């Protein structure tokens, strides 16, 4: 993790106050929680304060948030310093978060980093014109378009030294740029010729239930008993459960790379490719705005359900996990993993694997 520190006193602004819109946003966040639990809104409110202050959290902003949420300043400080997404020093107008995690690294993030270093010097330093600063961060979750950077709120993917230099030139010159893949491909569709998912039978519904047929054939010898009964219950005719459900991949209307490959076209739509490289149709990157008026992303769900027992159905290990040196696992005397107390685990020490 990069060494972080608080901004020096000289560049700390003298005061900070929420704009009316952000004040309203903070109140709305606080209202989500019961009275006395204002502190729960801290991350949302700190994030808003960071947006308003130009991408970083000055001391006064931390104190303002503390007062707003009825917290001690040190408690807000703890949160602001814990999360690396809160910047404690000023950042450039274009704050580049460069991903250096493994997939990006394998796809050439090192070259991108060299570009950043040669143009702006060390990370965490704002360039002389105040336009840029960069920071190496951990995986941003766009590995399929590696290497990539995040500039302010947008991802710029499929970078090469050339297109990244051009991107930075455009930003510096205030020319419009297009977020997303810079290579011309659309989102994360296959980069080159399609080499997988080409079998037409994948898309005509005939694969549905195929495994079951295969299973039936293999299981033919077992005609009696439980297995046979089970076999009998398997429907003989296999149908797609919802043939008209309209999966995008089966629909000819969808302009997928697979379909294009099937039809013998180039996998990437030339129109898209042209569009991506045509600056006249591109959107201009929005520089960081003070007091953004974007509505807060709201979700009715505050959590995502996770499986309650991740290890359910796993086979129980039959050998101790910490055997004594030199003892065959199943004969180890000292079993310290606690499994000896599990009533349903029977250890047969004579049953040495041959």
């Amino acid at each position, binding site marked *: *993790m990069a*060494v972080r520190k608080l901004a020096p006193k000289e560049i700390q602004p003298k005061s900070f106050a929420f704009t009316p819109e952000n004040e309203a946003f903070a109140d709305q966040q606080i209202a989500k929680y019961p009275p006395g639990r204002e502190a729960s809104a801290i991350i949302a409110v700190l994030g808003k304060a960071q947006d308003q202050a130009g991408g970083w959290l000055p001391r006064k902003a931390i104190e303002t948030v503390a007062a707003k949420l009825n917290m*001690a300043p040190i408690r807000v400080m703890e949160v602001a310093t814990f999360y690396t997404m809160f910047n404690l020093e000023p950042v450039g107008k274009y704050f580049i978060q460069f991903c250096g995690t493994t997939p990006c690294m394998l796809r050439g993030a090192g070259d991108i980093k060299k570009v950043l270093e040669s143009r702006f010097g060390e990370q965490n330093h704002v360039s002389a014109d105040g336009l840029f600063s960069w920071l190496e961060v951990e995986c941003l979750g766009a590995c399929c378009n590696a290497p990539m950077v995040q500039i302010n709120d947008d991802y710029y993917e499929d970078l090469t030294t050339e297109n990244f230099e051009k991107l930075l030139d455009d930003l510096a010159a205030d020319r419009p740029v297009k977020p997303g893949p810079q290579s011309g491909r659309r989102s994360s569709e296959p980069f080159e010729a399609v080499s997988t998912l080409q079998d037409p039978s994948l898309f005509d519904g005939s694969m549905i239930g195929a495994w079951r047929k295969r299973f039936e054939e293999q299981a033919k010898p077992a005609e009696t008993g439980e297995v046979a009964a089970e076999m009998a219950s398997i429907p003989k005719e296999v149908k797609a459960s919802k043939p008209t459900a309209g999966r995008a991949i089966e629909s000819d209307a969808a302009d997928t790379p697979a379909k294009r490959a099937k039809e013998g076209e180039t996998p990437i739509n030339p129109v898209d490719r042209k569009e991506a490289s045509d600056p006249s149709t591109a959107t201009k990157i929005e520089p960081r705005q003070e007091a953004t008026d974007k509505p807060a992303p709201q979700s009715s769900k505050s959590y995502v359900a996770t499986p309650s027992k991740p290890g359910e159905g796993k086979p129980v290990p039959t050998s101790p996990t910490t055997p004594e040196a030199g003892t065959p696992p199943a004969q180890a005397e000292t079993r*310290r993993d606690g499994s000896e107390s599990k009533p349903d685990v029977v250890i047969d020490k004579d049953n040495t694997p041959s």
Partner: protein
Amino acid sequence: MAKIIVDGVEVDVPPEYTLLQAAEAAGAEIPRFCFHERLSIAGNCRMCLVEVKGAPKPVASCAWGVRDCRPGPNGEPPQISTKSPTVKKAREGVMEFLLINHPLDCPICDQGGQCDLQDQAMAYGVDTSRFQENKRAVPDKYLGPLVRTSMNRCIHCTRCVRFTTEVAGVEDLGAIWRGEDMEITSYLEKALGSELQANVADLCPVGALTHKPEAFHYRPWELSKTDSVDVMDAVGSSIRVDSRGREVMRILPRVNEDVNEEWITDKARQIVDGLRLQRLDRPFVRENGRLRPATWQEAFAVIANRLKGTSPDRIGAIAGDLPAVEELYALKLLMQSLGVANIDARQDGTALSPAYGRGSYLFNSTIAGIEDADAILIIGSNPRIEASLVNVRIRKRWRVAPPPIAMIGENADLTYSYDYLGAGPETLADLVAGRHSFLEKLQGAQRPLIIVGQGALTCQDGFALLSLAAQLAQSIGAVKDGWNGFSVLHTAAARVGALDLGLVPGEGGLTAQAMAQGGVDVLFNLGADEIDIAPGPFVIYQGTHGDRGAHRADVILPGATYTEKSGTYVNMEGRVQMANRAAFAPGEAREDWAILRALSDVLGHRLPFDSLNALRQKLYAEHPHFAALDRVSPADAASAVQALAGIGGNPGRDSFASPVKDFYLTNPIARASGVMAECSALARELRLEAAE
């Protein structure tokens, strides 16, 4: 109760116990760093790992409840093991990790010899480290004049953070950054703003936080340890005085569940330098307006000359806040033998008198009893600075489940929330007359507690206020069988003992104020430094420090402080406690009872005892409750409250103001201390900042 088998020993413990507590109940020792009985559970040091049968991994016993353990397959009680090879290996592993970033600077560390990490590394660690890389380095922090930091040594147990947040009630300390970069600090390295801050250095299991004033002054094994009691406030905290040779080196808290749990205030702890500065080490006699050193004989002769021919009603005695019961008793006997009725131990003019019974001036609910109260009314007191550990108890009660708490007096930050009712007597009168909604809450409470502070009692007509408070206590049923919620909060350690002895003006006697304003010709001042004595009377000052009293004195008799004599003190609850001698008084200073005994001889009224034991024998015969050490002799509060309620009278209109203006400078010892002066200056700064 839940059964659990610890190392083959079956114990029956309450189900809410943690495994650590259960193991201790079974006699097993569990090492720990972050766990502390009086703080919330953090579970982050991992030193207390034990093996629970059936659990795949060792578990942190401090954070695992007995009721969370599953029984065995056939319903056997859960089994834990604290001595198995797994546990030993786990402890060694944890210790190795803890020592990765801990510097090996024990020889220059103040914690050396009293360090949990040192001890536990010896007991549970291995003798080598496999860590070859660089250790992390952390900048030291400024946390104020009392706590010295060496943050390289910090093992992130967060005891200090939890103490300041939970017990002291100031959210000053926190852990910023994260992971390996985590650092304990205050916001922007401001000094801590608590009157209990030095306790964090006691809590620190390593040498990261140590006591700044005594840094590098001693090694703990050089000190001789004396159990004693604190006299800086009327709480009477249990302390241990550590001395080397003639010098007191430090003061530490002792565990006393009834009084101070295991905390003491910064004032109780850090006045150590005040014990050796500004000391009166020989008698002085004023000649031609200047004090000159004298011998004991000279000083006594001057007193005898001055007293000769002075009529007893022109002689008076005032006792201060720090004398022990023994010298107060000697003073009382001496004045009796001289026929003097002008005697008073209430230099602040507080409206308390033994005439209404012992229950009328004690903290009847007891300090531990605060935890049982279900409604609290504080009248004219700021417990946070007058008796910090009482405040800690109220806060502890408040944290369990906030009872209704209300305050009449100064609207101060008490570290818990309360209803502010008003500033003065009118609000109290309204409450008594039922014109205030808080009365319903008090009436609805099973065990209401009324705390009457010196801020109210030192007002113009304190007795009328005391009477009002007693009427209120009666009307809400605060005094009944099994609960006595009428409590007087004192600020002076000697006050209750003096009132028990009856050191109040006899028939026709003058009060302390009247004497100080020139009502007498010869005034014997036993350590009363908080009262201004008008020019005129001949003042004999017996005390320890060259403070206000000594400046006004005509003859100075140097006495011993509470660490230099064996003395009985009675705290505000009426708990009789004994302070013991840890060092000797400097120079020619003597124990106070002996000075009075010698003086009585010169005056021709020899006191009837030649030794401290003889004095105590006589004292115990006259006042048997002084013999019951460490106990609170029950007082008949019902009749006392009845008597107080009958006083009546019209209280004045002045709003209540706490008599403690500066927490750090309440007595001559504290005023002599450089550390206290620094704390006081800093607190003033913080107050100014807060006022902005």
